[in-house]
């Protein structure tokens, strides 16, 4: 048996060692690119240490959209400010994950004057994306983030960690490089009710579940308190959609209003209703983003 065990352990050590080496090579290859916020959907590839930003944008795809294509530069031009975007699109984002990123942002001694949280009401009714095992597949492997995930992660943190590490071996990671910066010229031709219903079914997998809403309120509360404790002003924005209000809109606004003057609330659900400004039912195209940023900047100043 000793011979068997020795060979087994020798093989295991060799395999783990070579796998880790592969992961590190893949990781080094990607991290050696000079990524900018608009050139990647990854947050850790662009997150620095001891940096100061005027705006920290967070949320799901609607927040990420403010940095996609050429939008990041447009934002910084319109606001005449420096912005960091830590939103997570592609159905990977959730409030728990956003809280994790926010804590990591501060943990790295970064500062932000204002947290601009793009709060899509579907976030308040969906706890599944928080537990997505592949939530961090786009992130480079950083030991400090591994420790952070182990310390602050939720129920699925060990699975998230496994997928986070093993994702560095995947084809997608080996081919990761800075994205091209082009305008999003896609235009929504009209409102397709069937398509909208499909979208709602995905965004609200358990409908307007009150229990989920309450648990999400608690997470959002922790997130707001975390930002305020770091002397970061908090502005919550309900993003525009061609159909106007998302299900659960009123409840979300009612919750946010409880914070009174501590949190600015900008309800932009109906801000842009022209389909020509959208690439789908709730994502603005470049023309829409340009239009919207002006309005957003004006209202933030006014408030």
């Amino acid at each position, binding site marked *: *048996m000793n011979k068997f065990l020795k060979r087994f352990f020798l093989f295991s050590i060799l395999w783990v060692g070579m796998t880790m080496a592969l992961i590190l090579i893949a990781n080094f290859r990607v991290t050696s690119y000079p990524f900018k916020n608009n050139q990647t959907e990854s947050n850790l590839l662009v997150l620095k240490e001891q940096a100061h930003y005027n705006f920290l944008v967070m949320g799901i795809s609607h927040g990420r959209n403010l940095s996609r294509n050429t939008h990041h530069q447009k934002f910084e031009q319109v606001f005449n400010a420096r912005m960091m975007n830590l939103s997570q699109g592609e159905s990977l984002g959730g409030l728990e994950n956003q809280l994790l990123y926010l804590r990591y942002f501060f943990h790295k001694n970064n500062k932000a004057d204002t947290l601009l949280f793009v709060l899509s009401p579907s976030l308040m009714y969906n706890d599944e994306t928080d537990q997505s095992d592949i939530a961090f597949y786009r992130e480079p492997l950083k030991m400090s983030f591994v420790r952070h995930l182990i310390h602050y992660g939720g129920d699925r943190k060990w699975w998230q960690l496994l997928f986070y590490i093993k994702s560095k*071996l995947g084809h997608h990671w080996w081919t990761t490089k800075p994205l091209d910066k082009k305008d999003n010229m896609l235009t929504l031709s009209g409102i397709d009710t069937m398509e909208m219903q499909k979208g709602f079914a995905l965004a609200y997998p358990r409908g307007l579940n009150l229990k989920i809403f309450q648990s999400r309120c608690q997470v959002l509360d922790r997130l707001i308190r975390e930002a305020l404790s770091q002397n970061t002003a908090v502005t919550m924005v309900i993003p525009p959609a061609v159909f106007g209000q998302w299900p659960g809109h009123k409840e979300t606004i009612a919750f946010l209003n409880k914070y009174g003057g501590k949190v600015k609330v900008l309800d932009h659900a109906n801000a842009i209703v022209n389909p020509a400004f959208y690439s789908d039912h709730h994502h603005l195209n470049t023309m829409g983003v340009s239009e919207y940023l002006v309005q957003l900047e004006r209202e933030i100043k006014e408030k």
Partner: protein
Amino acid sequence: MLFNTFEYLVFFVVFFAVYWAIPAKYLYGQNLFLLLASYIFYGWWDWRFLSLIMLTTVTSFYAGKWMSSNPGQRKWALWLTLSINFGILIYFKYAAFFVSSFTASLAVLGIDINLHLVKLLLPVGISFYTFQSLSYVIDVYRGKLPASRNLVEFAAFVSFFPQLVAGPIERAGNLLPQIQRSRTFNNLQAEEGLRLILWGLVKKMLVADNCAPVVEQIFSAHQTMDSPALWFGAVLFAFQIYCDFSAYSEIAMGSGKLLGIELMQNFNYPYFAKDIKEFWKKWHISLTTWFKDYVFLPMGGSRGSKTQTIRNVAVVFLLSGLWHGANLTFVVWGIYHALLYLVFVFMVDKMKFRLPPFAAMLFTFFSVLPGWVYFRSGDLSQAFSYFSGMFQQPDDWHLPLLDVKVTGGLLTLLIAEWWNRNRLFGLDLSCKVPMPLRWTLYGLLMLLILIYGSFNEVSFIYFNF
């Protein structure tokens, strides 16, 4: 506790260490520990069902003892044990099906009756351990096997955890003597066990579980799909079920080898069979031989008239279908295979014409596909609808997009199994292959599982049976 989980890994490592730490001379202690671990393994799903396996064990054990010491009353003991074991199986697995079929038949005749039946949870692996215990009782009755004198040994045989919930359905003649004698650790056997486990995990996590979502997508939306996509779905399901089920058997065999116990081969590359008769010699061998030995041959097998042979074949396939579950889709699956088998035996096999080997393999593979459509469908109407869709003129020739995981998994499977088709399993490497090459291959397969394997802890399909 699924084989493809960390839970099982921890369980097995701890078990392995303690099991071999018990000196071989304390066989009773080793078997007692094996029994305890098997009950923990089984109770992990639902501890309440332990009472059923214990009842089956105790009745079969004492029936064997009774038959041995009272030869004149063997028949009574046999019938009593069969009644109890089949009674449990029928109650938990088929009662609702038979009652609903009965009331539906009466409704056709205009008689409405309301029979309320509690919907019961199906105890995991009940069909497997019931058949395993029955084989023991029947063999003792026939005088082929001496009755076991030790309840712990016998209980360890019935509940041997690697094959408890999805087979292979072991024969007492093979497994019980191995439990009754002391076991010594064998390096070569253990290494082969690890290879079997690795190959099982490749089939389960890389092929079966990656095919599963595509199959689900096609079967659930089959009404909106064109015939090429439906054929494609059926082909994928054929590979999914083969990989899922044979993976379980191979992991069971591998786990057994690590414990010094040899389990029977359950699959022998069935999709490389050149005719349906050969297919049934290669698919789910433990169940097929069970039915052959305990149903087909006692009924006369193929020695009687043509009509008797047809009847015997039909009964075996019908029972085989029903064994899988209380659903008419399984019954139709059984009837379909009976027809295929009979047509082959009485017509095709008698013709002088033979297809070239590769064409014969393809023909056999595609002839079992319609059966898989019934097997996979939730009910008969879905199966009919899917099946008719397969033969309609397509508007769209596009196939659902296959990702690298599914294509890569299938290619790995086919290349390895074709290469090793005359050996025990797809990763059955000869010692002549140099160690660095073997280790590189194992490492690559493990990397493939890590990168492309499904880690969703998908249950094995045959747990439902």
